């Protein structure tokens, strides 16, 4: 029996570069940075810059809907609704022709509803337990973003929350594709979200020396693969993809962006926070994804790198690509979009999946900004300007790695 093919039919995002896919993609191609000073909320913190969502989700969502959601779920809902409308499944559903039992969600965040947790903790301390919001648990629970999407769109199949720190968004794409391949659902919304720009996570990430301490022009601080990189910049936002079995998509005449060809998930079992310097776990994830995809190394035209702008991680990723792809690693175009968006943690893999799919669809790899002097240990062709990708059948890899040693690679392919 032939395997069920999974395709991408809808995209959505709300990111540091814009409130939707069009503005975000335009920002990526223009090489625009979403990093800026955080203002009063960061006063006294060791790091005072970040890449907040460009559009406040409360300006987009209905007021009563928004007040019952943590900011992470607000962002998730905005991205999911865009992807849903983009796929055209909204009209299929309105016509009563979508089977909600065969519709799932895999949506993640790395940190969860941290704003709700901490603001209610303040209320508890200042005003007492009676004033703690009765809806704080459904707002802050880890599966709140996935459940919010399920409720809003009527998804009654598996509604999952794969949490793997900064690999969460990419793992959600992998899990949703698996659910379709296993025949459990025909349609799934996959994605990730994060809203952790709050003094406590900023202090915590800074204290573990993960964030850049560069106090120069904020737009130059996130510099993946550059010799001057010294840590990541915290970003905020969400990405969402509508995945569908090819059969389901074709039956309704859907526009198809790309195909999910293969996925690989591994763990380092090396350290809770540091990546394996040799990148062995990451390499295994990439190898599994490429094998699962059934493509040759020479078919891979593009990689959206995890590349967070940390000293160790960026070098390890170069090692991984060479270990798996051999000399073909020299011939593909690498983009590190975190140079513009900062690091969306659990949302990163999802936003970058959106960027990878668009790169394939538009045959253009987005640039990497702030790459003034490439680290000589990074032996990769990193795009610094938008770069054309080949016509014909191509594949691209989206890499994501997370604390806990999580490694997720997803291979997307063009659909002719």
């Amino acid at each position, binding site marked *: 029996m032939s395997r069920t093919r999974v395709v991408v039919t809808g995209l959505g995002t709300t990111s540091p570069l814009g409130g939707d896919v069009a503005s975000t993609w335009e920002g990526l191609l223009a090489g625009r940075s979403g990093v800026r000073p955080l203002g009063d909320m960061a006063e006294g913190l060791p790091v005072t810059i970040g890449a907040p969502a460009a559009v406040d989700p409360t300006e987009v969502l209905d*007021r009563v809907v928004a007040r019952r959601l943590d900011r992470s779920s607000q962002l998730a809902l905005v991205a999911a609704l865009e992807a849903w409308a983009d796929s055209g499944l909204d009209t299929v559903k309105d016509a009563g022709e979508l089977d909600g039992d065969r519709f799932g969600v895999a949506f993640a965040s790395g940190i969860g509803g941290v704003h709700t947790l901490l603001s209610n903790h303040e209320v508890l301390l200042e005003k007492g337990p*009676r004033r703690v*919001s009765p809806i704080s648990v459904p707002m802050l629970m880890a599966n709140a973003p996935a459940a919010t999407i399920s409720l809003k769109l009527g998804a009654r199949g598996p509604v999952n929350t794969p949490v793997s720190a900064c690999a969460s968004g990419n793992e959600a794409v992998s899990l949703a594709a698996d659910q379709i391949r296993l025949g459990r659902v025909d349609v799934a919304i996959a994605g990730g979200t994060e809203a952790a720009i709050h003094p406590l996570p900023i202090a915590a990430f800074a204290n573990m020396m993960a964030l850049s301490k560069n106090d120069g022009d904020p737009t130059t601080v996130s510099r993946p693969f550059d010799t001057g990189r010294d840590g990541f910049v915290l970003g905020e936002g969400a990405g969402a993809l509508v995945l569908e079995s090819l059969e389901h998509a074709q039956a309704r005449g859907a526009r198809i962006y790309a195909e999910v060809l293969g996925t690989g998930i591994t763990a380092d079992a090396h350290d809770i926070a540091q990546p394996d310097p040799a990148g062995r776990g990451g390499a295994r994830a990439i190898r599994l994804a490429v094998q699962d995809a059934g493509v040759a190394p020479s078919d891979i035209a593009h990689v959206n790198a995890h590349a967070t702008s940390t000293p160790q991680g960026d070098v390890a990723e170069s090692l991984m690509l060479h270990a798996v792809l051999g000399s073909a690693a020299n011939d593909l175009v690498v983009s590190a979009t975190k140079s513009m968006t900062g690091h969306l943690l659990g949302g990163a893999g999802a936003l970058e999946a959106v960027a990878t799919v668009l790169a394939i669809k538009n045959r253009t790899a987005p640039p990497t900004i702030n790459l003034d002097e490439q680290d000589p240990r990074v032996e990769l062709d990193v795009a610094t300007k938008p770069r054309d990708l080949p016509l014909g059948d191509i594949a691209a890899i989206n890499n994501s790695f997370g604390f806990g040693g999580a490694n997720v690679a997803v291979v997307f392919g063009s659909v002719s």
Partner: protein
Amino acid sequence: MSTEEIRAALAEIVNEVAGIPAENVQLDKSFSDDLDVDSLSMVEVVVEAEEKFGVTIPDDEVKNLKTVGDAVSYIERNRAA
């Protein structure tokens, strides 16, 4: 505060929590049947009303507050003079 002032202030809370137009929040309206205020929203309304009117509304009492009028008269009876 007059009965009408309490009703109007409560209506503002219900509007804030559940998005019900304040003018619909009248004494004869049932929170759950007429105004579609679900149980968690009702707890939010109660907590905000306690703060606004300086009253305590025990959990056991909340189930007796079926209509806006029930809540207004409870607040009237229990407010510090």
